[in-house]
């Protein structure tokens, strides 16, 4: 079972972050600390991020989901300070990035952050090996060491044998594997993925999502993942933040969003999602009657996975936690209820 926030240290905290585009955004922000949409319109400014608050816990996959123009790409660039936020605080391991010097930022980016880009951003004049080794080269690491490290990363993403190829000789999926390998070459603590699979065909996208989950099960990075695809978000996320017009409208686990969408906008996304495939047994578990025995389901299983066990005619299943201890009971009626809600 993966723990969810608060109990663990927060790797990245984002407090009251604003990003305004337009003339004199900075002085405006100082004068009007909490501007309304009307204030902004009058000042001729566009808000890409409005008062965003997030906390990303160590080792979790945090997905920021939003349609185009919702400000998600700007937000992820604010988090790494590729874009300078107009106001707010970004704490990385407790250190405020907005107060860091350029030199310090270079240090942090070189050693602690990695990023994967939507259109891969591979350097066309370098081979796969040289592309993956490039971040290390920039740090001045000698050839033998950086190439050994790059080779490891290439093997990890399953591109062994393609080292001497140039990016344009690879398929889209392979190119993004190079992008992933490159971003991992510096062994980052914090891994940003900006719509990494959006430029790929649906089939390849699915394959890459599986590959991504496989990698994460090995690497256990802290991940900020951007997507416009709600299904992708549900599939990958430990927690999701949904953005609209620069604001986070709701953030929580996939179950939270599906079971209790905060706004009609969120509900619009969750309506088409089969709840049984998202809701986990844990959130339907009730206290177990004494002496409950028989068939058991893990607390992390989805309702859809648990449902077939009721086919035997039982009304009550034993729910077990990761250690195999009884954690409660799952009632047939609750499962049916979830299934009926679509």
């Amino acid at each position, binding site marked *: 079972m993966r723990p969810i926030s608060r109990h663990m240290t927060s790797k990245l905290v984002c407090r009251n972050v604003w990003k305004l585009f337009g003339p004199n955004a900075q002085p405006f922000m100082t004068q009007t600390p909490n501007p309304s949409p009307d204030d902004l319109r009058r000042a001729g400014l566009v808000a890409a991020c409005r008062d965003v608050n997030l906390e990303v816990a160590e080792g979790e996959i945090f997905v920021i989901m939003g349609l185009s123009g919702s400000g998600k790409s700007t937000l992820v660039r604010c988090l790494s300070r590729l874009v300078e936020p107009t106001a707010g605080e970004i704490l990385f391991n407790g250190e405020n990035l907005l107060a860091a010097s350029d030199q310090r930022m270079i*240090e942090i980016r*070189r050693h602690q952050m990695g990023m994967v880009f939507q259109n891969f951003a591979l350097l066309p004049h*370098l081979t796969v090996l040289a592309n993956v080794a*490039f*971040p290390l080269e920039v740090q001045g690491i000698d050839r033998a060491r950086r190439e050994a490290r790059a080779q490891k990363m290439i093997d990890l993403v399953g591109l062994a044998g393609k080292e001497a190829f140039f990016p344009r000789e690879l398929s889209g999926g392979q190119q993004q594997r190079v992008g992933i390998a490159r971003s991992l070459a*510096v062994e980052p603590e914090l891994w940003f993925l900006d719509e990494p699979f959006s430029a790929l065909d649906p089939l390849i996208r699915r394959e890459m999502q599986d590959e991504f989950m496989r990698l994460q099960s090995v690497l256990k990075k802290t991940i900020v993942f951007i997507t416009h695809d709600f299904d992708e978000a549900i599939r990958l996320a430990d927690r999701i933040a949904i953005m609209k017009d620069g604001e986070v409208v709701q953030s929580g686990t996939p179950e939270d969003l599906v079971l209790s969408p905060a706004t009609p906008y969120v509900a619009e996304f969750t309506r088409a999602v089969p709840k049984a495939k998202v809701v986990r047994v844990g959130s339907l578990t009730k206290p177990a009657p004494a002496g409950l025995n028989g068939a058991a389901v893990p607390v992390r299983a989805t309702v859809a996975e648990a449902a077939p066990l009721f086919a035997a005619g039982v009304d009550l299943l034993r729910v077990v936690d990761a250690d195999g201890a009884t954690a409660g009971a799952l009632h047939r009626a609750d499962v049916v209820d979830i299934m009926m809600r679509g």
Partner: protein
Amino acid sequence: MTAPALDTSRVIAPRLTPARISVPWLVAGIAFVALWLAGPERLPALFTYPKDWLIPAARWIGDFMKWLVNEASFGLFTFTQLTRFIAAIIDLPYRFALSLISTGFLSGQGSGAVQIVPPLPWIAVIAIVVLLGLYAGGRRLAILVGVCFGFLAVFGQWNSAMVTLASILVAVPIGVVGGLLLGIAAYRWERFERALTPVLDLMQTIPVFAYLVPILFLFGFGPTAAVVATLIYAMPPMTRITTLALKGVPSEILDLGRMIGCTRRQMTWRIMVPSARDSLMVGVNQVIMLSLNMVIIASMIGAGGLGFDVLAALRRLDIGAGLEAGLAIVALAVALDRLSQAYAIKAGESAHAAEAGFVARHGYLVGALAFVMITAIIGLVVPAVQSYPDALKLSTGTFFNEVVRWINVNFFDTFEAVKNALLLNVLVPFKRFLAELPWAGVVALLAFAGWRLGGWRLALTTGALSFLIAATGQWDKATVTVYLCGISVVFAALIGIPVGVLAAERDRLWRWVQAVIDTLQTLPSFVYLMPAVMLFRVGDFTAMIAVVAYAIAPAIRYTVLGLRRVDPNLIEAGRAMGCTRWQILTKIKLKLALPEIMLGLNQTIMFALSMLVITALVGTRDLGQEVYIALTKADTGRGLVAGLAVAFIAIIADRLIAAGAARTKKRLGLV
């Protein structure tokens, strides 16, 4: 909003009605005609700029130049010492290149010099370019460049060609590196870019003859001054292309650079420049071709080489010799152009770096070096290997002279009749018409056009620049320039646009046309003079023919590009509505391609103006001639003032047409 459901006029042709004559234009037109009809007798000051009010710009510039050459000083050393120092630095690589491929390494001075090491044998030079061709573009390119260089040897143009090539070998690297650095600086500091842009505009529009004189003063007569002039001419496009290419680097690549913690220097040299490589190679090709063009022109200030041969032949009116040297320039131009283009493509598709030995990895290099050594050694014994044997040289000079004589004997009357008919009925009346216009009215009209098309700033630009032309006493000559340029552009458009229209719809025809205009554009402007002079001797008509031939390429190219860029959905929609081919062409394609065609015309005007200055050599009486005379008299002020007047005409035309094209685009909803 409720729109009528079937308002087809708006759906099909949104605001495509022909531009109505607006009231302000009508008023301005009437005012202008009234002024014109009032006549020079009643308003002399408005027709001929009063002599007393002339700005003595030529004298100021001349005085400034004198001060610069004789007195300007940085304390430790004078300005002239600085420029001569630069000249000496450029001279070093030039001497080396010249020694290597042309004169050999000499010991001693002047006629008493003794050759200690001979230059590269002609066979070795050909072998090098063939290997370059083979490496960059395969067998076909190798054969092409081999034939081009072989042509130089066989027709006795080798020595001149190598002198020209030596200048290019020095100018191109400096031009590329200098342009790259300026372009990077302009990309990095917006202020610098804003300051640089007008300078680049001037560098590209001032006729080259105009700055030959000051360069002559500052850098001395000789090949080095020619290289400096070449740099001024060839660097601006590289600078512009660099800035544009860097701006075109995808933002994700920049994000990547920052994300992996690149320093500024790493960002520039490891990320941006390599990512922009493909566009930058286009710039390199431009520098090479412009350098060739300029090195030819710079033969006037001692660059020597093929340009000097053409110039000398023009002065003697020795058509055969001039044509031969001209063809040699063509051969050199084609070879250099194709080689550099092949390299640009090659750079984009680098092969897998195999872990092979040195010889295997650098096979071409090793081969070339081995060949050079072997031929050099054999050359010591066998003179035919060292330099192409005189006995085997062919000369087509007499042949061409015969051809020209034959053409003149048989077609003289026809050509003469065509020439005279056009001169009497079109050229001369137009020239007179322009000469009679009141300068004040024209200035006002230009300012008005600027205001209508682009607002107050443009009005100020066009008005002030045209006023300056009058105020510096260049008005009469400027009208001749405008007349020759205007007539040539009209002819170029009358031929070029229909050709473009035809070629746009026929892929095969377009491939042919494209091959022809590509070649035309690689030729240095000098080359165009020879056939024109050959058939029509000297004069305005000859100049016009040469200008039309030089300037027609952009008219064709932009027409085709504009027509091909029209949204195919609109054409399909037109066809679905039952338009005939003619209707589709006139009602949809040409209308939507209009802005593009206008930009093509703009380019045509720029090409025409730059060629017009060269045609001063065949006896026109415009600003170009003024610049040329100033060049022969080494009169800096006079040359620069006339040169600036040409630049002003170019800038006025450019800004007005660009503003017009932008407005049309907006009106058509293409932005």
